[in-house]
């Protein structure tokens, strides 16, 4: 068994998150958050709180450099509200005190006045001329325009045309580990222990806020107790760092679940209006899409989410012409951000529904329709960009068609059943411009272990076991000879974010690139010590063996080599696999996946139950089969939530679900058997040889479930999650209620 860090503790339920195990004397951090969704801060007086005995720091926006804002494409978010609050739950001030009781008392002593502003709750209203502006730049955060060919003319040539509009839910990450951390100051810097996908990015951000050199900020961001994108965001780290730096004492700050439900970034709700058409033979001719996205109060990853969603809106199909428009609107509905699927989930679900509607209208089997329209192996990417060829697309379609037929359920007065399919693709890693390159280190450490050091993070996805398997396969060493050091800025090499399904790809490419130079250093060192030629040696479990004098133990152990030669280090840098294209952000490496879902619909209650799910990810051979399976089945469960139960409603800027008794994540009782059928074949000359498994299963599962509902009802969902009220309404209109 792999010696994965914390494995036994996780199995025993005693594993501790980064925010636990604080040093003696750690202060309790707490946040004052806005009760209003949109308001001007008229007064904020923390003097009484500061003078309370036991309080060591009270910080507000006044303690943050006035030009310090957070974001990626757009910097618009202060860590503590400055002059205005823009969503309910936005932090206004924070305190660090000896105890929770003192911290709570200090929060109560903060005097503040908020003058309400008009609340912008609907993205369409947000873009009206007269809408209240969340930001000086207006409420249009970002937009996307792309066209290819003449869609209007091609619609004229279509034999069949359909329109479909889908709205998608605001899904909450709902990770077990809440946003939080511990920050420990030193005379010259800080150590920040808080979950992050990108320790180096967090380090430079915090350093710039505190005015410190990067090297004075140490960030430990892993392991993470679940993220799904929520901790790709900068969450409470700046406030935590500010408190510790101000108090000159260690501070622990962890949100409560009710705070997290308002504060955590969510999946963006999309409204996707599609029109697609095909000729008599079923060939897709034209697509128009108008997409409106509720971004919430700050840009965060919204522009990238919109770009990715728009790039994926053609799914895996070759349209002759497309005309695409997307808009991202600021509202006072929390903050949308990075979330597994990253915009593609929403648009892929919409287009896959539309494709099925069109196939039915053209009287063509949905699977056959997909095969007719599948993008060619060497076609350009969806936005005309150069991409890594995708010959695996047809293999995925073959595998989907070859699935054993599900036995139809016994006809019933009460239940309807349906089967749905999807075949999708999504870009892996970041769009052109990155960060797509990465650095890492292979080292023989002084304790005699071959160690892969990177800043990639473990968040339950199985990165560590995957890396260990790559090391074992690369170096013919024993399990005890290898080590994986991840998740901190100590790595000495920035591997970039563990995001966008890129973690495994990056680890594999780094180790692959570093293997030969690293081995050469090891062999040189061993040959020198043993006084034999390098080609007389073989590296094996435990160390080096002389080829001509085989023994059952090494002639030079790795620890002896390290003791004699010192630490042997190879730094590795790999470039990003990316292309850039004027005007639009594009991906170069795509991952394909197909899915089949079955549902049973209760005509009496309108409830939908998923009865089976097949996932066919084309990610090459799984490096860590169990982790891969876990990624896929977890994706299936999250897709169920997206389609059937999960939505965080806002009413006039007010968060309506504050806990999991009103926000419904599927439980194990809701999850059907999920069968994973990896499509392991990728082109022999594929530059990577694998694809990431993080998101693609979800992106295929959700549209398949939605299509199964459409198949059972003979009506495609217009809103997700599918509500029983809508189901009963459809059945009533069809005269199919009991």
């Amino acid at each position, binding site marked *: 068994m792999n010696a994965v860090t914390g494995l036994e503790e996780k199995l025993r339920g005693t594993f501790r998150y980064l925010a636990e195990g604080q040093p003696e004397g750690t202060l309790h951090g707490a946040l004052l958050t806005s009760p209003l969704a949109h308001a001007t801060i008229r007064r904020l007086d923390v003097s009484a709180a500061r003078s309370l005995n036991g309080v060591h720091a009270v910080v507000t926006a006044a303690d943050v450099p006035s030009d310090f804002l957070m974001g990626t494409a757009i910097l618009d978010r202060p860590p503590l509200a400055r002059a205005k609050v823009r969503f309910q739950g936005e932090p206004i001030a924070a305190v660090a005190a000896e105890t929770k009781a003192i911290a709570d008392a200090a929060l109560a002593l903060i005097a503040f006045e908020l003058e309400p502003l008009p609340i912008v709750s609907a993205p369409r209203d947000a873009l009206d001329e007269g809408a209240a502006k969340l930001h000086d730049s207006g409420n249009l955060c970002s937009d996307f325009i792309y066209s290819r060919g003449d869609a209007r003319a091609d619609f004229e040539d279509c034999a069949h045309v359909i329109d479909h509009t889908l709205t998608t839910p605001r899904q909450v990450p709902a990770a077990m580990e809440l946003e939080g951390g511990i920050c420990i100051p030193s005379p010259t810097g800080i150590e920040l222990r808080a979950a992050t996908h990108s320790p180096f990015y967090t380090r430079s951000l915090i350093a710039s806020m505190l005015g410190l050199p990067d090297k004075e900020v140490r960030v430990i961001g892993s392991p993470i107790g679940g993220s799904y994108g929520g901790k790709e965001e900068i969450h409470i780290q700046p406030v935590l760092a500010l408190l510790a730096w101000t108090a000159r004492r260690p501070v622990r700050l962890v949100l409560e679940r009710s705070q997290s439900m308002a504060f955590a970034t969510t999946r963006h709700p999309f409204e996707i209006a599609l029109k697609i058409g095909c000729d008599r033979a079923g060939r897709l001719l034209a697509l128009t899409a108008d997409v409106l996205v509720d971004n919430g109060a700050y840009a965060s990853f919204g522009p990238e989410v919109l770009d990715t969603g728009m790039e994926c809106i053609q799914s895996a199909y070759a349209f002759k012409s497309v005309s695409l428009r997307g808009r991202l609107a600021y509202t006072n509905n929390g903050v949308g951000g990075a979330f597994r699927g990253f915009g593609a989930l929403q648009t892929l679900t919409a287009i896959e529904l539309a494709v099925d509607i069109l196939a039915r209208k053209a009287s063509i089997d949905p699977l056959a329709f997909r095969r007719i329209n599948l993008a060619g192996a060497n076609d350009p990417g969806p936005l005309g960009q150069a991409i890594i060829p995708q010959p695996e697309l047809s293999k995925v379609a073959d595998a989907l068609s070859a699935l054993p037929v599900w036995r139809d359920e016994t006809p019933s007065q009460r239940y309807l059943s349906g089967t749905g399919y999807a075949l999708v693709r999504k870009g892996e890693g970041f769009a052109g411009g990155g960060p797509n390159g990465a650095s890492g280190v292979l080292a023989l450490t002084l304790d005699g272990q071959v160690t892969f050091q990177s800043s990639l993070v473990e968040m339950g996805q199985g990165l560590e076991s995957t890396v260990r398997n790559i090391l074992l396969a690369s170096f013919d060493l024993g399990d005890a000879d290898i080590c994986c050091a991840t998740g901190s800025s100590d790595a000495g090499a920035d591997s970039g974010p563990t995001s966008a399904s890129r973690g495994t790809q990056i680890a594999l490419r780094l180790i692959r690139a570093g293997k030969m130079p690293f081995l050469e250093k090891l062999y040189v060192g061993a040959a020198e010590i043993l006084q034999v030629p390098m080609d007389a040696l073989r590296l094996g479990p435990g160390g080096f063996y002389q080829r001509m004098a085989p023994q059952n133990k090494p002639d030079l152990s790795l620890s002896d080599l390290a003791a004699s030669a010192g630490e042997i280090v190879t730094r590795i840098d790999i470039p990003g696999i990316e292309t850039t294209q004027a005007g639009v952000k594009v991906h170069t490496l795509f991952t394909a996946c197909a899915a089949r879902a079955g549902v049973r619909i209760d005509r009496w*209650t309108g*409830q939908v139950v998923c009865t089976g799910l097949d996932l066919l990810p084309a990610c090459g051979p799984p490096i860590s089969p169990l982790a891969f399976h876990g990624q896929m089945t977890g994706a299936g469960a999250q897709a169920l939530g997206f389609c059937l139960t999960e939505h965080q409603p806002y009413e006039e800027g007010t968060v309506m679900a504050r806990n999991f*008794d009103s926000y*419904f994540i599927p*439980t194990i*009782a809701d999850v059907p058997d999920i069968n994973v059928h990896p499509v392991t074949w990728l082109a022999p000359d594929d530059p990577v040889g694998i694809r990431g498994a993080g998101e693609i299963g979800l992106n295929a599962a959700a549209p398949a479930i939605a299509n199964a509902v459409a198949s059972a009802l003979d009506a495609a969902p217009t809103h997700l999650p599918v509500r*029983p009220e809508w189901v009963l309404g459809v059945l009533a209109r069809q005269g199919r*209620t*009991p």
Partner: protein
Amino acid sequence: MNVDTAYVRPADMEDAISIKASLRAAGMYGCGLTAAQLGWGVKGPEQTIIDISGLDFGPDVCLADSGSMVLAANAPLERLRLNPLISGQMPTFADFLGYVGSTAMRNQASLGGNLLWGAGDLEVLFAVVDAKLRFAGNGRAQSLGQITSDRSDDLLVSIIVPALQESRIFVEKLGHRQAFSPARVVVAGCVGRQSVRLAVRLAGNPVVLVETSWPMNGPLDDALFTGDTDIHLKTVAHNLLRGHLAQLAQQDMA
């Protein structure tokens, strides 16, 4: 979660009653309580819990000479679900326990608590089978429907389910998901030779019980669907009752 609730563990039933008498409204009986009980704040209940989970209320299930089933009030629901006597005598009850809560929660919650806390799913089923509740110090058993006054000061000891050999029972819960979900609708019916008892709970409303003749002629009694509840839930309750009753009527015809 920081649970601040105080607990006391009485030595026996008399001790429990005595503690309750001394604490009055500041104490409450509890059995398998979990901090995640709906309706409580994040810190748990304010009252002191008098933990009766360890008291001897007799076997979880036993059969009386009359054929009635006697259920211990402090029996955990999961143990009841797995009890062979229940699966044999009243399989509908055993099956339904699979939908009351998650396994982890259900392992802890007790039958008595579910029946008396005010919004338990089992109340609907036990109303239609005319189960009787027996409290400590009071020999007379009461029907669920008769418990109109607050009995929170009294210690529920057992529940008696009458012999149901000739009855046919159905019960269904509709939540937001399959299990561990607050009920939106619970319906139940118990069809005898000449009468049928139907019960409905819509969202958080009280259980409504109606008895009428069997086979039924005419529509369902509107009284079953009263309460401040959205029209969808009323429709669902109506559909469920009509659907189950139609199936039973078809069986009779066959």
